[in-house]
């Protein structure tokens, strides 16, 4: 028994040591661009990660077909972070071993905060498709393609005020989620300057996201005509179902997290009719670029792309635009690439799926026009 234990211990130690060395990565100049992608491919937020990284993959395929960036092909590798900061750091490190030169990610905010610290240290250029916290871009090497949380909140309030959608508005938000809370905060702040009145502000947490009858009752009693829902689609599906059971039919207004609600399993999409969401991308847009993207996406993945897919797609084109502006080659060191790309970012203007003429300030935040989408007959339709 004892001998066995010793043998086992030695064997385990040996296995660990071998595994550590086995993945020692090769580094140095390469003849292709190596772009990594990090996002939740499994777990609760998987829909976002998969959409964003699938979108990026489509962009990579297109660019490679057209001859690559500055004549060099792109290699793209996606890693899973399960929407967890610690896992995200591991994903980042494994991509670093692979020889990543630029990062498309991470898709969700909290992991992105942790990864952005590392990429700044390692001089790896980073463009996030959808991490919307303003702190994400506090380092020079990191840029956003999506709006920041504060921008989404105030843009929503302005939109509701200008279009006079309602005079009494209720807000339900997730107080244990940084994204939801960030949007809610600026929405309420901006609402003070608008023509409507906030009659109810009510919260839930991640631990209590299965029953919303109390919150909805509050909204109904206060006579709210519009409910602002700054949270993710899976919760929104529950709220819509329960509101329907109560016979409460206000306008529901969401932000980009609401995107994807039509893809929820066992959810009656009829309930989502008339839901507004503020998102920069609608799959029904008639311009050629969007239509081509939607078709490719449907052919390849069998579903209609959501905004995150478009964000991911744009990230790759943004990196391409910056690399072409600075006339870079993949055999340069990461330091050179990162510095040149970060500088070029403030000079480029990109026409993407999520906005025309996107430009970036040195701070890393994007400037583009927000757009609202309404769900009609089971599809996202842009409202003018």
């Amino acid at each position, binding site marked *: 028994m004892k001998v066995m234990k010793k043998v086992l211990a030695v064997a385990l130690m040996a296995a660990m040591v071998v595994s*550590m060395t086995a993945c020692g990565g090769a580094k140095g100049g390469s003849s292709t661009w190596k772009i990594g992608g990090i996002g939740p491919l499994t777990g609760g937020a998987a829909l976002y990660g998969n959409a964003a990284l699938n979108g990026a993959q489509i962009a990579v395929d297109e660019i490679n077909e057209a001859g690559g960036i500055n004549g060099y092909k792109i290699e793209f590798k996606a890693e899973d972070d399960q929407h967890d900061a610690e896992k995200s750091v*591991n994903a980042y490190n494994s991509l670093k071993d692979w020889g990543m030169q630029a990062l498309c990610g991470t898709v969700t905010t909290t992991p992105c905060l942790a990864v952005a610290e590392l990429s700044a240290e390692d001089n790896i250029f980073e463009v996030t498709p959808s991490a919307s916290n303003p702190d994400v871009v506090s380092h020079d090497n990191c840029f956003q393609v999506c709006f920041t949380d504060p921008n989404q909140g105030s843009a929503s309030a302005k939109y509701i005020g200008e279009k006079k959608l309602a005079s009494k508005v209720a807000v339900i938000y997730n107080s244990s989620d940084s994204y939801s809370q960030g949007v809610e905060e600026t929405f309420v702040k901006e609402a003070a300057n608008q023509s409507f009145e906030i009659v109810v502000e009510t919260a839930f947490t991640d631990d209590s996201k299965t029953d919303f009858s109390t919150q909805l009752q509050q909204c109904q009693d206060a006579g709210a005509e519009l409910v602002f829902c700054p949270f993710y689609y899976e919760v929104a599906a529950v709220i819509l179902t329960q509101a329907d059971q109560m016979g409460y039919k206000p306008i529901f207004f969401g932000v980009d997290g609401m995107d994807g609600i039509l893809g929820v399993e066992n959810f009656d999409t009829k309930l989502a009719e008339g839901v507004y969401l503020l998102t920069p991308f609608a799959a029904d847009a008639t311009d050629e670029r969007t239509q081509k993207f939607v078709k490719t996406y449907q052919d390849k993945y069998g579903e209609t792309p959501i905004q995150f897919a478009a964000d991911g797609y744009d990230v790759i084109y943004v990196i391409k635009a910056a690399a072409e502006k600075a006339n870079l080659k993949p055999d340069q060191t990461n330091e050179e690439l990162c510095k040149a790309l970060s500088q070029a970012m403030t000079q480029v203007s990109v026409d993407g799926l999520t906005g025309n003429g996107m430009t970036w300030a040195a701070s890393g935040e994007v400037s583009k026009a927000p757009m609202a989408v309404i769900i009609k007959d089971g599809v996202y339709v842009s409202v003018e």
Partner: protein
Amino acid sequence: MKKTTKQTLITLGMVLACYAVVEILMALGLVSSLMKGVLVPVCIYSLCAIGLNICVGYLGELSLGHAGFMCVGAFSGALCTKFLEGFIHNKAILFIIALFVGVCMAALFGFLIGIPVLRLNGDYLAIVTLAFGEIIKNIINNIYIAKDGSGYRFAFINSKTIELGEEGTWILNGPQGISKIPRISNFTIGIVLILIVLVISYNLVNSRTGRAIMSIRDNRIAAESIGINVTKYKMLAFVISAAIAGAGGVLYAHNLSTITATPTNFGYNMSIMILVFVVLGGMGSFRGSIIAAALLTLLPEMLRGLSDYRMLIYSIVLIAMMLFNWAPKSREWRDMMVEKFKEKRLKKEVD
């Protein structure tokens, strides 16, 4: 040499040997960044597993809230660092103070929970600690601390009462947690902490106090009848166990630059994970706890190459290891193999 001393030295030696091997490999540039990144988490989970092992393996009380103590340690340690960052620039001193604060806070919460619960018999501790883990997460998600020109601002539940000035920064912003924590943790610090905790734990369980604690586990009535103060010793073991988890939390907070109290990192799933380390490694075996924690932390990362299948394989490997280690049949088979091995060696010697 006493048998217990020998066991202690073997475990300490094993940790040191691992450290030396990894350091040498790192110096030679043979360790991938992925593995470098996992080294600190391995230390963190080893610490927590050792802590929980005192409670589950030696005291015989089930705790399902060790992630909660980790959470307390992480947040109090990180807050301490954020407060002192401007005054103390030496990272080592900063970390030691944070460690002290984090450990003390975790111990304090362990003590407070212990007062009512450890007087009871039965599985109450499991239920109460489970609740504690959930409560502490929710409380932290509702605390807001900010700093601006006029000093520190505090708010509970409603962050809108804090009107930040131009230069204001959030220190703890409710569910957004604490960000921009200096990344001080490294492998060396982790190993030093493990060594310290191991020495403390082995000394505890091999002392008179340790024997008293184990006697409570084995037979409470008998222990009481020979005059052992049951509540006192239970409390002692539980508080030490919580404090060690707090140390793990401090290490955790200073490893990632941002911490948030979410169900994935400090929820009851994490508590169960720590319990899995302890059970797989063997109740009452600190060495086993470390090996199990290291193995189960490294495993999902090693399986990254298998993409989506890794979740499936991870679970299968977990079940297989659990069976191999602890199923009666498998133990019989292992004993048999060892017997055969010995017989062969005997025969060889005879020949």
